[in-house]
């Protein structure tokens, strides 16, 4: 790691993108952007939500066609017309939403469309399996190539994607926010693999909003802002502070603007809640004005608990008291009528209606309030939606833009807005800042403060411990479907949370 630094000047560029321009109806996504990738480097792309990072890499991967500029790959001018051609040129991309087929095995996925054949019609299963397994072993990951992808965890699916890229002989590997759904240990494993790839001469383009991990894995960094190229630097020469300033072009006061609210009466109490196979004997109380952080490993039952309280999953037994009154919550509608809101972790599958506009999505859970006799007041809706677009700086050409066309982080802001707008008094947020840039996170935290000041209570599930420690009053740690401990944030450290979550306490 140390040896490689500052030698980049001698390395050859494998890829040069010059004066790249990309426009969509009503939007200039990229405006005269330059980008150079050296052989064997990990090059970070950084920028606010909607800055144009994903657009830039999608042009490389053949998903989008550029509107202007040129691409030089290994010294030759190329036009990348479609994803297949990009693969043939040695460019592979791993999107945040994986392109795997869950009903097929890891091996079948890796060689999908490029199966080894025994005869023109018969597939050589054994060879596929053996090659896939050796690819996975090479990466040093513990996955059985015969396993169905649907049965694998997020991190393992990602490894299957990496193996697939390797099998394609990728010289350039693009990863768009690979760590946003990973736990700490999985991130460490991923980084080990990225280093392995580097040593084999693969160049990696890496997009992430997690500033703390950038210096650990990156060599150089290119910053985009509003579709414009801001600059490229050695990462070792940059502090987090520098990065933020380049990215947002303004001073960011504090990352976690926690205001201590007056903690009020009990608003939600859960007693002896059980759900076969995922939750057992859950007891806790949530108070007005507080943010309760919920920590735990992937699969520790955090999301299951949220869904159970919200009525999205049936519970086997247990009692839910809202404002001291026992309530039966069988479906999400019951919960919403009791002023409980749930921001789910999977925005595409469970949060957004991609074909509806920004405005419609923000108001989707609040239409009752904005309508009379079933007729929706366009004005009220517009006023509410434009307030959130402004407060959270959602980057969109207009309130009528389909959410489908927003950048990932801006889509996340829309789902967050939907629940902020719902007037709920108990908000269950599952990974609320996933994919959101540092600047916008602060704005979301401030809105959370405003809500708690008004007497709402927030249960914030998060895999980012700094966020939990920075924003919550108390921390609840879950392990294997049970509560492993609840602490005042002042009396707890990251280590203690991890110990509890792992069961090593």
């Amino acid at each position, binding site marked *: 790691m140390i040896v490689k630094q500052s030698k980049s000047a001698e390395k050859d560029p494998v890829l040069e993108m010059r004066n790249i321009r990309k426009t969509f*109806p009503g939007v200039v996504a990229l405006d005269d952007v330059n980008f150079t990738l050296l052989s064997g480097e990990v090059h970070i792309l950084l920028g606010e939500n909607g800055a144009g990072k994903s657009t830039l890499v999608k042009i490389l991967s053949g998903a989008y066609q550029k509107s202007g500029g040129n691409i030089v790959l290994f010294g030759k001018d190329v036009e990348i017309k479609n994803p297949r051609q990009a693969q043939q040129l040695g460019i592979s991309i791993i999107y945040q939403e994986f392109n795997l087929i869950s009903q097929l095995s890891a091996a079948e996925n890796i060689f999908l469309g490029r199966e080894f054949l025994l005869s023109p019609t018969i597939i050589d299963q054994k060879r596929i399996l053996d090659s896939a397994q050796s690819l996975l072993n090479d990466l040093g990951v513990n996955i059985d190539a015969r396993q169905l992808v649907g049965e694998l965890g997020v991190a393992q699916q990602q490894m299957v994607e990496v193996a697939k890229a390797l099998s394609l002989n990728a010289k350039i590997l693009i990863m768009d926010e690979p760590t946003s759904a990973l736990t700490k240990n999985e991130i460490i494993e991923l980084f080990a693999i990225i280093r392995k790839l580097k040593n084999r001469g693969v160049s990696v383009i890496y997009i992430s909003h997690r500033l703390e991990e950038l210096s650990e894995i990156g060599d150089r960094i290119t910053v985009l802002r509003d579709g414009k190229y801001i600059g490229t630097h050695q990462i070792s020469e940059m502090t987090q502070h520098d990065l933020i300033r380049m990215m947002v072009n303004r001073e960011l006061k504090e990352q976690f603007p926690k205001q201590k609210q007056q903690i009020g009466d009990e608003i939600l109490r859960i007693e002896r809640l059980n759900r076969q196979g995922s939750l057992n004997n859950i007891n806790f109380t949530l108070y007005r004005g507080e943010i309760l952080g919920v920590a735990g490993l992937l699969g520790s039952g955090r999301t299951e608990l949220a869904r159970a309280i919200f009525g999205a999953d049936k519970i086997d037994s247990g009692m839910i008291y809202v404002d001291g009154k026992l309530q039966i919550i069988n479906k999400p509608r019951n919960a919403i009528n009791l002023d409980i809101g*749930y921001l789910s972790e999977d925005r595409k599958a469970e949060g957004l*209606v991609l074909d509806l506009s920004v405005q419609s999505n923000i108001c*989707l859970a609040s239409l009752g309030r904005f*309508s009379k006799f079933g007729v*929706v007041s366009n004005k009220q809706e517009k006023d509410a939606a434009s307030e959130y677009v402004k407060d959270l700086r959602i980057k969109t050409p207009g309130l*009528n833009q389909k959410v489908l066309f927003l950048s990932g982080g801006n889509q996340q802001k829309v789902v967050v807005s939907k629940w902020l707008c719902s007037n709920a008094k108990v908000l269950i947020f599952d990974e609320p800042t996933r994919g959101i840039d540092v600047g916008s996170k602060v704005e979301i935290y401030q809105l959370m403060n405003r809500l708690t000041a008004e007497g709402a209570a927030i249960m914030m599930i998060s895999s980012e411990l700094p966020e939990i420690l920075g924003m919550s009053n108390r921390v609840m740690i879950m392990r294997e479907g049970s509560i492993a401990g609840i602490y005042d944030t002042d009396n707890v450290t990251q280590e203690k949370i991890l110990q509890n979550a792992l069961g090593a306490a």
Partner: protein
Amino acid sequence: MKSKEFLLHNARQFGTLFGLFVLVILLWILTPHFLTISNLLNVAQQTSINAIIAVGMTFVIITAGIDLSVGSIMAFSGVVLASALDAGLPLPLALLIGLAIGMACGLFNGLLITYGHLPPFISTLGMMSVARGAALLYTRGRPISGFGENFRSLATGEIIGLPAPVIIMIFIYIIAHFVLTRTKLGRYTYAIGGNEEAAVLSGINVKFFKTMVYGLCGMLSGLAAIILTARLNSAQPIAGIMYELDAIAATVIGGTSLMGGEGRIVGTLIGALIMGVLRNGLNLLGISSFIQQIVIGSVIIIAVLIDMVLKRHKK
């Protein structure tokens, strides 16, 4: 800026409108008869029934569903309505019965789909057969004919020179457009079709609204039955065979996606007009009905094909 946004937002509809326009010009050149007031009114009148059914179909398809039973429901509503008139029931009551029968069949479809968890294709396929059988059974296979002037004026009457069915159709389109764009029912129709899981988690009573949409579709089939019965002065148990296909075609040509979540009521009107104009034009040109079928089928395929290609190229 405002008008540019309007153009962008309605690009698909303008495309379909352009298609209609080209068709009209073509027929104008090919046959002098086509562009006469009387023929155009004729086209509008003939289109009205399919256009009204297609409104219900549009709602259903936006929820990512399908309704194959509209033609049968229309026949069943028609014969019950006819027998009510025959029995001497007051006109408003008889009309209400016609609409109610259609709505009831539609609601039943909806309940099977939401609470019975049946795929829309299957439940409405079943209803298609059940309602047809019921219509035949109810009339023992014979048409019911001969009604009073008042009732028949629903098809033969005119207001400011426009035939009554055309007025009804316009009225329905205005209401449907309002419902789809400005009411909760409309918004939820899109949300359910676009992402049902997200709709449930947003607290929308998906089962209720979906059932309502099928009820609405059934009711509009009942309305179509009223117009058809009045026009023919007869209710036939075998009326409306294959009408589901015309309604689906009008909807899809109009830009509504069979995947759900997308579609405009104006598009469906244009789609229905394209179907109507095409039929009329082919008749005027004296083209045999065999060839007509080939032409109409091809137009449907080409329209959707163009749509797909355009969508892919937007990237």
